[in-house]
């Protein structure tokens, strides 16, 4: 027999709240280069431990070490640095524009730039991302014109989606960026469906699904894993664990699981867990998953471990629920600084060139901003027409919508 204990509700809570000193000593971080690289056709059950460690390439000295190093050329790394810097500069400008009332809303990537910028380097045209609102780096790395992004942020007449969407919900088929929904997680399972279609047609294309740590709790996450596990289409299921879901720390969504990557184990799917602030590690892991997809070995789950250094969005003030200094204490560092250090260490970059690049990028982004603002911003200049409001509900406008459009006078 045993002694009974009255049950109680276990509500996970972060150890650290505003007023406390940031402390990440509970986050176990392996040395760079320490984690093995299994062959991409390894059976999931033979690589379970990958879900409980963190693949890292860049060490503290800025060297690329271990079995995951070497997936990118110096040139590609230089471009990657530029992409990340562009994204950060763009974010800063748009945040300010939002405060100036030029757009309604904005969401930044601060601290998470490496993930989307490096991942995109592992894809090729024809592949399709199903992103969340925090992967604009995919677009930048794919060469989508910055001015189109800005036009959308401003909801001006150059907005490719005609003012219908929130600022950061981009869409570009050509650049492998699926239209963002705004409803969390819904597109995770669509990515699996897209990949199933590629498999049905036998086309050599893959889909990449994106989700945040908090959003893994949604039903669509399960639907995606179930269908991926059953039909094994060429899909990469990315989880960006940036520690927070608005005000809620990752423990609420993760519960008793060691990691989010571990969710894969219930489905017989292989999972990697990666330092999301290490451009090289992100790329190498992505490349591994891409190889699986291209060899018809099936889906891969990747958890990118990072930290949301900024507010959730322009509507959010994180100092209400976490110490202001927490971001600075984050042990995986800043992705831009880490790649910069590596490039300097490689001898193909320098502090001076970095400063110069910063200035160039700023000038470039400001020029684009001028161009976009010349068209218009949310409340001024040329804006999408009310007529646009009635288009694209259907391919062909049915009579009742036509009547309504006439009522508005268009």
């Amino acid at each position, binding site marked *: 027999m045993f002694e009974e204990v009255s049950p109680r509700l276990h509500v996970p809570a972060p150890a650290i709240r505003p007023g406390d000193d940031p402390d990440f000593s509970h986050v176990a971080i392996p040395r760079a280069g320490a984690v093995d690289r299994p062959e991409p056709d390894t059976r999931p059950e033979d690589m379970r431990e990958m879900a409980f460690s963190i693949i890292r390439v860049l060490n503290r000295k800025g060297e690329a070490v271990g079995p995951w190093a070497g997936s990118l050329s110096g040139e590609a790394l230089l471009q990657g640095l530029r992409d990340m810097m562009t994204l950060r500069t763009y974010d800063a400008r748009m945040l300010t524009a939002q405060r100036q009332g030029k757009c309604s809303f904005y969401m930044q990537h601060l601290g998470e730039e490496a993930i989307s910028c490096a991942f995109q380097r592992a894809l090729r045209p024809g592949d399709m991302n199903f992103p969340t609102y925090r992967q604009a780096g995919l677009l930048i790395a794919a060469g989508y014109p910055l001015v189109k992004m800005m036009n959308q942020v401003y909801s001006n007449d150059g907005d490719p989606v005609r003012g219908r969407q929130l600022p950061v919900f981009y869409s570009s088929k050509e650049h492998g960026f699926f239209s963002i*929904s705004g409803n969390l997680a819904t597109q995770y*399972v669509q990515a699996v*469906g897209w990949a199933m*279609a590629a498999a049905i047609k036998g086309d050599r294309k893959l889909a990449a699904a994106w989700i945040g740590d908090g959003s893994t709790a949604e039903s669509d996450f399960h639907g*995606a894993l179930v269908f991926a596990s059953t039909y094994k289409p060429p899909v990469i299921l990315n989880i960006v664990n940036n520690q927070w879901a608005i005000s809620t720390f990752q423990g609420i969504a993760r519960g008793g699981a060691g990691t989010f990557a571990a969710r894969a184990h219930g489905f017989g799917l292989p999972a990697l867990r990666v330092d999301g602030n290490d451009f090289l590690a992100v790329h190498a892991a992505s490349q591994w998953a891409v190889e699986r997809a291209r060899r018809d070995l099936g889906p891969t789950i990747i958890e990118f471990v990072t930290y949301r250094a900024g507010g959730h969005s322009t509507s959010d003030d994180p100092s209400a629920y976490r110490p202001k200094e927490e971001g600075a204490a984050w042990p995986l560092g800043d992705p831009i600084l880490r790649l910069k250090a590596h490039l300097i260490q490689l001898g193909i970059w320098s502090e001076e060139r970095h400063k110069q690049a910063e200035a160039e990028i700023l000038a470039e982004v400001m020029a684009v901003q001028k161009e976009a603002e010349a068209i218009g911003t949310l409340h001024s200049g040329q804006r999408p027409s009310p007529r646009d409001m009635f288009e694209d509900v*259907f391919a062909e406008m049915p009579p009742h919508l036509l009547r309504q459009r006439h009522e508005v006078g268009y």
Partner: protein
Amino acid sequence: MARMTMIEAIRDAHAVAMERDSDVVVLGEDVGYFGGVFRCTAGLQKRFGVERCFDTPISELGIVGTAIGMAAYGLKPIAEIQFADYMYPGYDQIVSEAARLRYRSAGEFTCPMVIRMPTGGGIFGAQTHSQSPEALFTHVAGLKTVVPSNPREAKGLLLAAIADPDPVIFLEPKRLYNGPFDGHFDRPSVPWSKHEAGDVEPGYYEVPLGKAAVVREGSAATLITYGTMVHVALAAVAESGTDVEVIDLRTLLPLDLETITASVRKTGRCIVLHEATLTSGYGAEVTALVQRECFYSLEAPVLRVAGWDTPYPHAQEWDYFPGPERVRRAIDKVMEAE
């Protein structure tokens, strides 16, 4: 020309579409090897292969969600939801995703798919095998909603739905699968082989979406309905001895308002009939439109006959079902008013 049940006609529409276009694929629970619990997809897997017609896990979210991904890729998925009562887990994907993809991407991504589901009662299926959720679709911008009432049109409407570039909700009144049920549950059931609308042309043809049919001309009043209730309406009209015009909407959205208003302006009286729960049912919309467009022609208030505002019961099925007697009473009532 072959006499078919509605099940056979729907199966035939699938086969014709899959033969014509290799991008048409079929997915759903039990639709593959077995051919569907109502047998609407029987034989398709064998004929077209397992990649073109396959069983899914029991996840309506997954069925609709992956079908959206397939449609965005360029396929034309036909997703079967086993009973309309089970569409709710997939409702978010339908409303937030399928319906809005074209709009929010300004036409860059589209969602040409058909979601089929059996609806309505009359088979003692109780609250989880009897629902008619059409109003939950007609309220959502970006969806078309279709309800056939016989085999011939079911095939043509389904083919039109598959050809449509946007998501179409295709609601199949399960009580009509095997015969034109007129609501007289206590009489022997009539098979489609005894009904001329069981004549189904071979090959490809469309019955256009957005067009209603006047299934009985009349001058005394207009009875607007769809699905199973078309047959109930016809029976009730025949029994009432009143010269009522009966309109089968066929497509609820987009609605063929012209056919409706032409009729009501002529008759001056109107009844709207459906099986779904009365409050906020699709009949409310039709009524609101009719009173607006035909106000000066109306000699009586528009009456609605519908399912009661309760869940669909089991033992009391025939008390719930708006059968010919209730329709007759409404006809008398609408004729009384001056």
